[in-house]
């Protein structure tokens, strides 16, 4: 409950200046609102189920969502420019399939991992090029990319392929102990590193600032002499790269390749980014907000698993309902007139 009291001031502040134009502090309002809701949710869970209130439950949110975190990071880049990437889920599956099939064929992980990252980045770049140079809407190009990547999964194999490679197995089963008997997986470190790099790129490099400029006003960014074309292609490449990394993390997580894996994960990633406070119109948002968005989606699932009485359909309805609650509260806290 104490986290809530620390949270109240910024919320109040942002709603107080709800009129007028967005001011400095209000830039963080949606993200802070989400963070507050996450903490509230955690408090409610802890109140309802005693074993909920444990550090490991919190850490499991990270362990179980490494891939989604990385996907959301890539998606944040794309959405910041005002675009969208629907292909990420399918590219995750493709990365897993390539990984699993090559490892099965006896390749060395030191060859497979760079190759997978290359394929992901390559697909992303390709989609970016089509979007930029043929001037086709990102929604459609990446939808086609989704079909293509998913289709290639089937072409590789219809059966699920187990991964038995020792490196992958060790990545999957290694436990990095923290204080007490708490632990995290190596994947969490990778995800955290990706988040850190993304944060650095977005806030401390010219490329990152161009991403924001592009989302603010593409035409102006062009007239300001920024490299709009290159940046636009690059964000899709980044998203592709992130999808590939997420695919590797998913491989570590599940030690298999499965052509139907990660279906609909693109919508989870988009939802996480938006819940985290990034506007789909571009220009506003933070990569850390997206991480909070992922945690929110994760805690909703944990909540449902702890409840354990929801039937299949009530699970769906509750997820939808909680999504709605988050959106509405976020609107409430960060209301902006137009």
């Amino acid at each position, binding site marked *: 409950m104490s986290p809530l009291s620390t949270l109240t001031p910024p919320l109040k502040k942002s709603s107080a200046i709800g009129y007028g134009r967005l001011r400095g502090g209000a830039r963080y309002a949606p993200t802070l609102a989400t963070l507050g809701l996450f903490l509230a949710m955690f408090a409610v869970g802890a109140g309802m189920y005693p074993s909920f209130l444990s550090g490991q439950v919190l850490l499991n949110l990270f362990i179980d969502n490494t891939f989604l975190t990385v996907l959301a990071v890539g998606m944040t880049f794309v959405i910041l420019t005002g675009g969208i990437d629907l292909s990420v889920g399918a590219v995750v599956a493709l990365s897993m399939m390539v990984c699993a099939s090559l490892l099965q064929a006896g390749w060395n992980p030191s060859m497979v991992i760079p190759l997978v990252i290359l394929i992901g980045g390559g697909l992303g770049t390709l989609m970016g090029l089509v979007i930029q140079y043929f001037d086709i809407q990102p929604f459609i190009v990446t939808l086609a990319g989704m079909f293509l990547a998913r289709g290639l999964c089937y072409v590789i194999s219809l059966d699920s392929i187990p991964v038995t490679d020792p490196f992958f197995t060790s990545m999957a089963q290694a436990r990095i102990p923290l204080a007490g008997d708490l632990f995290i997986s190596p994947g969490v470190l990778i995800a955290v590193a990706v988040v850190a790099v993304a944060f650095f790129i977005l806030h401390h*490099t010219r490329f990152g600032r161009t991403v924001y*400029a592009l989302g603010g*006003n593409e035409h102006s960014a*062009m*007239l*300001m002499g920024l490299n709009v074309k290159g940046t636009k292609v690059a964000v899709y490449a980044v998203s592709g790269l992130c999808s590939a990394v997420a695919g590797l993390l998913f491989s570590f997580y599940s030690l298999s390749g499965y052509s139907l894996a990660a279906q609909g994960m693109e919508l989870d990633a988009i939802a996480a980014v938006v819940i985290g406070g990034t506007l789909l119109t571009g*220009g506003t948002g933070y990569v850390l907000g997206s991480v909070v968005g992922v945690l929110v989606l994760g805690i909703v699932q944990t909540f449902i698993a702890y409840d354990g009485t929801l039937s299949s359909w009530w699970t769906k309805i509750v997820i939808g309902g909680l999504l709605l609650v988050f959106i509405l509260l976020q609107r409430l806290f960060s209301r902006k007139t137009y």
Partner: protein
Amino acid sequence: MNKIVPVVQMDDIEIGFPGVKALDRVSFRLFQGEVHALMGENGAGKSTLIKALTGVYSIDAGTIVVLGESKRFSTPAESQAAGISTVYQEVNLCPNLSVEENILLGREPRRRGSIDWRGVRARGKEVLAQLHLEHVDPGSLLSEHSIAIQQLIAIARSVEVNAKVLILDEPTSSLDAGEVAQLFDVIRELRDRGVAILFVSHFLEQVYEISDRMTVLRNGCLVGEFMTRDLSRISLISKMMGKEMDVLAELDQAPVRIKSTSNASVVPFIETEGLGRKGSVSKVNLSIYPGEVVGLAGLLGAGRTEIARLLFGADKSDQGSIKIKGKPQKLRSPRSAIDANIGFCSEDRKEEGLIGDLTVRDNLVLAMQASKGWARRIPRRVQDQLVDEFITTLDIRPANPDALIRNLSGGNQQKVLLARWLVTNPELLILDEPTRGIDIGAKTQIQKLVAKLASKGMAVLFVSSEIDEVLRVSDRVAVIKDREMVAEVINDDISEHDVMAVIAGGPE
């Protein structure tokens, strides 16, 4: 001076768009240390020529030589790399980023590959100070500032690069007198430092004040290059318009104001008492009578636009009251204002006026259609009648109702927007900067139209940053200062100076 090699030399430039030749073998030169005005009516090809030089458009034929090197720009980045920096009329910055970032975007100081944010702040402050903008917080969002400040920040951005060539495309259209003077100081400073400056403006006085030389364009063709001091205003206008002097006599500068009939006995159409909105404006006591033009004068950012928006319900008021024809009324939305027979032309034509991808016809009847509701479509026959009528009376060109409005020039777009409200036959028409960024011909037409409308009994609220324009058209002038209405003067041969004195002196 002729011996010196020009910084920029453009020869026989041709650019065509589908169906139109925008530039036809135009040549142009720009020398170091001069302010060169590019003159012409809307649509003469000024913007196109500038965009050819800044790499926004590719040229179809001709040569561009910058500092002795032949260039062919295909992106603004290339042009900027060659030392050419541009400030456009429409602020082309990113509203979602901070002021300092907008100034330094793409050129941020870096340390070991990472942006040096402290350096950004320091440099931002420095540049703002150069333009006497110390009061602007470099860390604030661009969108928090008025259009005028944004425009100055855009100039700050181009000052920052140490450009060889600085292009200012209508930089003053949203600045008030003080800011213009401030800007001109900066321009002279830069000129004396050896920067070649290309200046485009519709304000003749400003052009004569600042420029050394001018190039005149008409209909995409070159008319000629002149020394400013050798060319009289009247002959410049005749060169721009391609008309003889007697035709120009029509465009006299005498007041177009028609003394309104005595309306002492009439109830004001709208009357506000203590009207205001938190964080915006306050204490607005304004009444406008039928058949009267009331001007709103004040410095930029004084709250002129805010008052206009309150009277139209575009923003909700939270203080004071409004009476319409003597009856208290709340204006919660533009719709409620429209239902009360009020019309409003916004100062931001592009963002708040035009529906770019719709035709002139659709744009023109839009407000009327909106107030009828979607279910009752205005019959095509009636639409055609209205559109034809206004195309003729307002001289809208091209006279093609099916042209997309975004393809019209600024002045013609403005006329369509005016017509949008005129067809609804409003009792009060609020015009916020209706003549900004349009050429003299169209400007005079609009001023005359306002006078004519008032003489037919319409109440008009006329907002403009040009005090002389306000004085020419209004019967009364309300003076705004620091987001409050401070005075109301009957426009009885008062001068610009008088109004300035009120602004300077505060409430009487």
